[in-house]
């Protein structure tokens, strides 16, 4: 059988790295083909080449047996290739209908013909059980629904080769399950799906075959039913990976970090984004705040760390009220923070690795003398952290932070924050976008810190992570504390119901 997509010997280079090195990929009609690899393995680059966002230096692309030259996304659309990007390409203030026909409008003497489009959208939505109201505004619907709008957009354009770029990153467990059903019904109709992912469970759930990439090279293509998770992980990372981390029994100590009646308001809408939030964190435990993205977790952390002012409430650290303290004071009093956005807050990308490692501590007597930086001491410290936390980069301490991979950037931040030796560590989505190997490393480190008696506040959207690490779980929904759970007595499904607002425990 002729494959619908065949990519032959694709090579794409960026200054300094070969993102795709002679990669071959063949996708059959009616299959879900997973593309598995760590961050920076070249999955997105390969798909961008197929979708016409990049042009490969070498290699050929065949669609249904014919060689094609895809210069831009319009060429790709004409060949029936559609893509759901990780970050949706939707206009917030437009309706679903408007977003779907955007760029594809039927026009009658300069006027839009929306009625036919509306009918077709309702039809498609019913056919695939997408449950989408064509007249709702994008900003009013959930992230899961927005994703389905993206899927509808592809269907509306008669795309039959669908690329999904990490589609489950923003979904709740229930939504993930629905998405998987939709994907299966799409291939039943003879469409083909390429699923970019680094989550092994998803592959096991839906994919027929999987192609594994590592460091820009193709490692293997396997039938999913012949492959185990361990096997896939090993090929993806290049070494064996531990799945079950040893977790010692939970022996919490005294309370070190707490907040009460926290209220924060959005500056523009005046909506309370954090509402009457409270928790108490003890030494030697990992307390997790779970929730779907955008339910006030980000703001809560800003409030706790002093990045944004609180409207009401108190924050205490080691029995001292720090509600009105400056960020520097909080840092010095023993608060470490692994920020959610490592490129915006965590690192100065145009600084070298060693400079980033002293970002909080450059004024420490260890690193300066009468205002002059002690280069040797800084270098020595950087080499220590690099060694201890296995931070890999092209030039060691003098590598530009910008040039490092996401996983290594994160390890550097983790190392820096841990080395500050504080009692409390706030870790916000510490493994977001990282691959199995890096996740394993970070999880092991966090558990080790807990066993050393540190107090860790973990903010996470990934239920796997929540279940694996937490000693206690608080679910946050629309800025509020909607329930506290013991991980041994709850399930991801139960948490999902609280996270989506269908249930709440009355305090």
């Amino acid at each position, binding site marked *: 059988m002729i494959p619908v997509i065949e990519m032959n010997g694709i090579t794409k280079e960026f*200054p300094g790295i070969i993102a795709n090195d002679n990669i071959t990929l063949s996708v059959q009609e009616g299959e879900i083909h997973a593309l598995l690899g760590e961050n920076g393995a070249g999955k997105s680059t390969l798909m961008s080449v197929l979708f016409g966002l990049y042009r490969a230096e070498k290699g050929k692309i065949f669609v249904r047996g014919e060689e094609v030259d895809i210069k831009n996304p319009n060429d790709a659309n004409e060949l029936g290739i559609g893509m759901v990007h990780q970050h949706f390409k939707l206009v917030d203030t437009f309706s679903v209908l408007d977003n779907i026909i955007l760029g594809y409008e039927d026009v009658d003497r300069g006027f839009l013909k929306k009625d036919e489009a509306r009918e077709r959208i309702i039809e498609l939505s019913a056919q695939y059980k997408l449950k989408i109201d064509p007249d709702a505004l994008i900003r009013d619907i959930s992230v899961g629904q927005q994703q389905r709008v993206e899927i509808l957009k592809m269907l509306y354009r008669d795309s039959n080769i669908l690329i999904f770029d990490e589609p489950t990153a923003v979904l709740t467990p229930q939504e993930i399950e629905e998405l998987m059903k939709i994907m299966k019904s799409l291939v039943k109709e003879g469409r083909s799906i390429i699923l970019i992912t680094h989550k092994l469970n998803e592959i096991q759930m839906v994919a027929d075959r999987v192609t594994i990439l590592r460091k820009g090279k193709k490692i293997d293509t396997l039938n999913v039913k012949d492959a185990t998770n361990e096997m896939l992980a090993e090929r993806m990372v290049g070494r064996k990976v531990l799945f079950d981390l040893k977790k010692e029994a939970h022996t919490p100590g005294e309370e070190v970090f707490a907040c009460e009646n926290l209220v924060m308001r959005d500056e523009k809408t005046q909506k309370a984004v954090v509402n009457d939030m409270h928790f108490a964190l003890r030494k030697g435990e990992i307390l997790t705040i779970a929730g779907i993205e955008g339910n006030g977790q980000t703001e809560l952390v800003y409030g706790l*760390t002093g*990045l944004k002012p609180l409207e009401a409430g108190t924050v205490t650290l080691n029995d001292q009220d720090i509600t009105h303290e*400056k*960020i*520097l004071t*909080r*840092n*010095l009093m023993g608060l470490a*923070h692994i*920020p959610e956005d490592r490129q*915006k*807050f*965590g*690192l*100065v*990308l*145009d*600084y070298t690795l060693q*400079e980033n490692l002293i*970002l*909080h501590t*450059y*004024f420490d007597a260890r*690193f*300066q003398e009468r*205002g*002059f*930086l002690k280069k040797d001491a800084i270098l020595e410290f950087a080499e220590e952290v690099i060694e201890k936390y296995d931070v890999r980069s092209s030039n060691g301490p003098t590598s530009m932070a910008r040039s490092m991979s996401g996983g290594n950037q994160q390890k550097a931040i983790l190392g820096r924050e841990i080395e500050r030796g504080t009692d409390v560590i706030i870790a916000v989505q510490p493994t977001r976008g990282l691959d199995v190997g890096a996740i394993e490393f970070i999880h092991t480190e966090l558990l080790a810190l807990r066993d050393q008696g540190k107090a860790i506040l973990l903010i996470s959207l990934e239920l796997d992570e929540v279940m694996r690490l937490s000693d206690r779980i608080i679910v946050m929904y629309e800025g509020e504390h909607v329930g506290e759970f013991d991980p041994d007595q709850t399930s991801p499904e139960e948490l999902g119901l609280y996270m989506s607002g269908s249930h709440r425990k009355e305090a």
Partner: protein
Amino acid sequence: MREKTWVDGLLDYFLDSSTAVKILASIIAIIGGLLVGLVIMLVLDPSRAFAGFSTILFGLFRNGTQSIGNMLYYAVPIILTGLSVAFAFRTGLFNIGATGQLTFGAFFAVYVGINWTFLGSFHWVVALLAGGLAGAFWGMIPGMLKAFRNVNEVVASIMLNYVAMYFSTLMVKTLIYNRSVARAFGPAESALIPKGFFDTLTNGSSLNYGLFVAFLVTAILHIILSKTTFGFQLKSVGFNRDASRYAGMNEKRNIILAMTIAGFVSGLAGAIMFLVPGRFLTIESNLLQEGFTGIAVSLLGLSSPIGVLIAGIFYGSLEIGGFYLQVTTNFVPELIEIIIAAIIYISALALFFQNAIYKTLKKRKDARLAEVPHE
């Protein structure tokens, strides 16, 4: 394997070092700007174009040490305003107000230079510092507006340029006006920046101790930026304000300090420009060009103090070339301004050049690797 030659080494060096590529881009911009000048000269007067062009390039050697001295004399204020712009830029601020700070500084320097004659041999030093401090004050204003009210420093300092200009005009008229020639009085003899040994060394050029000030400021700013915790904070705030805040740095204080220091340096430039014989504050409503040229020099010098020093001296050589161009041919000296403008225009495309250079070098390297015979 084929032996590595020096060409491979050089290619590798440029491919590994973004700074080297940036320097190359600056040099290409300069060459491009000069070629634009040459083309204009060819259009205007083909017969003398090449002679004129060589005057622009080599004018500085025309009168031995004297023209070199004058070149440096022209360069000093430009180096200082360039440093002012570059320093603020490293903190993420665009100091387009260098000309205002310079004007404000110049007025106070001249005022002190005229009136405080009791200071004796310290007179010029105090006048110079008065200029610096006045400039610092003028730079601090947009810094504070930016830090506390988040007012865009570009808009604030552009407006302050005009305030400084009219303030200077008003003050000159009320305090130090020489009615007979309709301009300010000149500073007292004791307030003029001494020429010292430069006078004999450069055969009576205008060069004075201002050159040492330029060198000293370059060295100090270089040390601040590359060696101190203060510079570490300033650059951090410049690169990423959010990360700096997250790390506990006081971004507001840093913004104010950076603008104040930038203003101080521009103020020094103003003092050095006017604490000389034969140059007087006027009551014309013109912004002093040196402040804007500083932006150009900062850009060419890649916002590094040492780069600015080199670019400033290059600018001085064009100025002196322009001076001789006017003397020896009938080309107008404004041609120099056109060349500078073209250089700036081309450096603004620097990013494009950097990529183009990178790709060309990469191709060269690939081609050389391909030469390796298969065994």
